């Protein structure tokens, strides 16, 4: 059984005089113990709201409605009272954010913030807690940890702050760690350090990780399973290799065709997705991606596309998915170099030109 099973999660923000925002519109995904699961999508697709809803950290504002289930180890987190939720948070589930300053207290030394977590959840005190805190900082690669314990968050660089936050998050050996764009604010060489650290922690402790990011490169390097989100729904779920070797949902195909790759040469034209996320169809009226989709057919509009479960552990929400390049549907997967690029452009090319003209008008 899955460690975390998110089922039809929805989050709406209603405000008087304004249109209700369906920030999350029926998201389902699951995370097995020790698994690294990616949630990818562009800004505004509902990644952060999904994770905050699971953690019970959404701002309690009037008009907020959360529906569906988020079952962690048999308990529906959405049904818990604040107190039990806080107990689980920190002990069993921890979260790190893009901006570590927002979750570190600026007027309390790092050391005290780490020992506080150790005291609250593991009952450690005094020298034992201090020693463990220093070991944690050391483990996440903070130099001279004993001295750092006495310092304040603003005295650390962005990368070091993120490490300190990771130390606090793993202090109680949680079974699940949710990381929301943990490296987006960091430079790429620092990002590489933090990603390596997260991989190591997951490998050594068996903690499951939900990695939230807009960067497909990041998930390619570390996730076992990847969920692609668009407009508040998961549109494709697949294991890492099949997803990149043969993306089926046109949005996934489009994303992969849009990214300049370090290993592709000068002047290789990118295949952008036409239009912008503003060009949206509400899910109840059909496929939200239809206004931008190059594979659109009549059936795409009218009702939201059903989830299709494919044989290879994959599912997508599309009535006209991209074909698997050059293969019979039931043949075994043997990903090849170059399959991504070929698959992506083949699938999108013919319809692309016509549709782009339409969209840019």
């Amino acid at each position, binding site marked *: 059984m899955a460690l975390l099973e998110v089922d039809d999660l929805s989050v709406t923000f209603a405000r008087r005089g304004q249109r209700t925002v369906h920030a999350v519109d029926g998201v389902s995904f699951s995370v097995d113990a020790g698994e690294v699961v990616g949630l990818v999508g*562009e800004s505004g697709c509902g990644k952060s709201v999904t994770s905050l809803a699971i*953690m019970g950290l959404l701002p309690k504002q009037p008009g907020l409605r959360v529906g569906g289930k988020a079952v962690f180890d048999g308990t529906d987190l959405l049904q818990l009272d604040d107190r039990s939720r806080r107990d689980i948070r*920190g002990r069993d589930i*921890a*979260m790190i*954010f893009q901006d570590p300053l927002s*979750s570190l*207290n*600026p*007027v*309390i030394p790092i050391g005290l*913030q780490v020992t*506080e*977590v150790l005291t609250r959840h593991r009952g450690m005190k005094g020298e034992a807690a201090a020693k463990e805190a220093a070991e944690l900082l050391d483990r996440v*690669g903070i*130099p*001279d940890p004993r001295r*750092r314990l006495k310092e*304040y968050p*603003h*005295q*650390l*660089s*962005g990368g*070091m702050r993120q490490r300190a936050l990771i130390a*606090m*998050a793993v202090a109680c050996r949680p079974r699940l760690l949710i990381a929301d764009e943990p490296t987006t604010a960091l*430079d*790429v*060489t620092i990002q*590489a*350090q933090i990603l*390596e650290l997260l991989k190591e922690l997951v490998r050594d402790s068996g903690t499951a990780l939900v990695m939230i990011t807009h960067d*497909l*490169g990041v998930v*390619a*390097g570390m996730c076992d399973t990847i969920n692609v989100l668009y407009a508040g729904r998961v549109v494709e779920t697949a294991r*890492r290799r099949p997803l*990149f070797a043969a993306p089926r949902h046109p949005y996934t195909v*489009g*994303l992969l065709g*849009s*990214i*300049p*790759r*370090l290993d592709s*040469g*000068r002047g*290789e*034209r*990118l*295949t*952008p*997705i*036409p239009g*912008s*996320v*503003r060009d949206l169809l509400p899910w109840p009226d059909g496929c939200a991606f239809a206004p931008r989709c190059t594979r659109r057919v009549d059936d795409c509009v009218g009702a939201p596309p059903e989830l299709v479960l494919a044989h290879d552990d994959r599912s997508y929400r599309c009535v006209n998915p991209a074909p698997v390049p050059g293969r019979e549907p039931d043949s075994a997967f043997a*990903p090849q170099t170059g399959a991504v690029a070929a698959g992506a452009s083949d699938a999108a090319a013919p319809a692309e030109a016509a549709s782009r003209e339409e969209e840019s*008008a």
Partner: protein
Amino acid sequence: MTGSENLVEVRDLKVHFPIKRGVVFDKVVGHVKAVDGVDLSIPRGRTYGLVGESGCGKSTLGRALLQLTPPTGGEVRFDGVDLTRLSAGRLRSMRRRMQMIFQDPMSSLDPRQNVESILTEGLQAHGIGGSRDERRRIIGETLDAVGLPRWALSRYPHEFSGGQRQRIGIARALVLGPELIVADEPVSALDVSIQAQVVNLLDELQERLGLTYLVIAHDLAVVRHISDVVGVMYLGALVEEASGDQLYREPMHPYTRALMSAVPVPDPDVEDQRERILLSGDLPSPANPPSGCRFHTRCPWAQPTRCADERPVLRQIGGSKVACHFAERIASGELRPHRVTAEVVRPADEGDAPGVVSAPSEPGSYV
């Protein structure tokens, strides 16, 4: 290469910002050497890509090139003319020929101006397009070139999506008919699906109009994609310069190798197999850069001699220019990388003690 092949030639460019302290009297206590001796040339109709991590001086270099920030030293030749010696008046008339595109179109566009007035403003300032009809025609052509519809003219920046706003920013630069465009992080504020639209647009415009670009970005994949020549910057100086392909195939400088290996590639096969060079520690502060080779505090190949006390110059090795004393011996594999102990780097511009900060959350409230 002769001067006429290169539209832009930068020699020993320096931009040093004074660091001031003191409550009553501003005392200069040091300098941030944001750009500290850069040479580069951009051939006509080509793209020079400048890459490096935040704070390494990319934007300052771009601004100094256009004389938007006065250089502390060195020269910038544009079409043979040294811009640093021009009178204000002559510089103004040169400005039309070199334009800039910014990262965040929203903050560089006046929210109270509609698109028509944004575009007309530049034309009027430079006295282009004598009549109203003439201006209309130029603006219409520019809109077509950047793929914006005519109805955009009466709209305001906030009514557009991020990608369209960047098109407005490009149109504003383009309407003056420039030869050089300095694009500072032109796509980094955009979503990936939109980045590709803008990258393709920049490519198309270059092909059609023969534009020369200096593209500044922190994303090496983007830079490699659109640049003929790539310059890698570290703490105010170029550490390596080569064609994008050469740089990718055979990065010579240890920093380039580390940077390259840190860029995620959306392909599991590549990700699982590639060489990883993890740098320890943070980028040192440009106000207090390391002595000798500025990379020596983080360099996995640093040697006990020279690295800490002699600043390497950019020199030609094969098809690349590299600023490393030991580049040849690193490339041949004779020198091996070693472990580096991370040094603590303080965030530059914040005080020593925490002041009173409002609304502290309780410790570890999220974790």
